[in-house]
């Protein structure tokens, strides 16, 4: 089975902190994605990567950056956390043009 693992299920961080969310997939997928999910807004794409060291902005990249140094790992970085970044964060991976498989999500609260 495809496995996408996010490093934390729940996180609480303070405003202004630098936050790292980690995601690892074990299926040798080229593509990896970070979404955030908020009530009434569905899943919104923050960033995605289609190869090591490659990244593309999604719909809402402001306040976020990403890193993909290895094929299996895709990190989301909140440079200076703010309360409006409190959300559920979902990582996914896929082959090119194929189904995206999701991790279990990280619920981040910024206080």
């Amino acid at each position: 089975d495809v496995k996408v693992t996010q490093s934390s299920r729940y996180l609480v961080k303070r405003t202004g902190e630098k936050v790292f969310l980690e995601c690892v997939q074990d299926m040798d997928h080229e593509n990896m994605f970070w979404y955030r999910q908020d009530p009434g807004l569905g899943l919104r794409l923050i960033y995605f990567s289609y190869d090591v060291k490659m990244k593309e902005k999604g719909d809402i990249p402001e306040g976020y950056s990403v890193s993909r140094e290895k094929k299996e790992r895709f990190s989301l970085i909140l440079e200076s956390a703010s309360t409006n970044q409190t959300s559920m964060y979902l990582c996914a991976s896929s082959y090119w043009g194929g189904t995206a498989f999701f991790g279990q999500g990280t619920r981040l609260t910024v206080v």
Partner: protein
Amino acid sequence: GESVGLHLPTLSVQEGDNSIINCAYSNSASDYFIWYKQESGKGPQFIIDIRSNMDKRQGQRVTVLLNKTVKHLSLQIAATQPGDSAVYFCAESPYQAGTALIFGKGTTLSVSS
């Protein structure tokens, strides 16, 4: 921007009924469509997919129908069970370089016994 939308935000059915969840997509270049199920506190889980060269695909208790003429996608769940209660999302994949899945906002299915 381009988006995938669902017709109803909520759907309530009785156990044993058949459920139909609808989705309209806007990108005629999309050639791959996926339905996901998301239970509370979990990530979306793949249910079934369909490519644009098909108009119907069946799985276990689920069927996806694709109507490219009107850009409409539906998920049919037969003999709905309480365990089917979840949020269902459709997603489309424009088969172009550098594009990611586009998701609709979801339909919450509630099944009562």
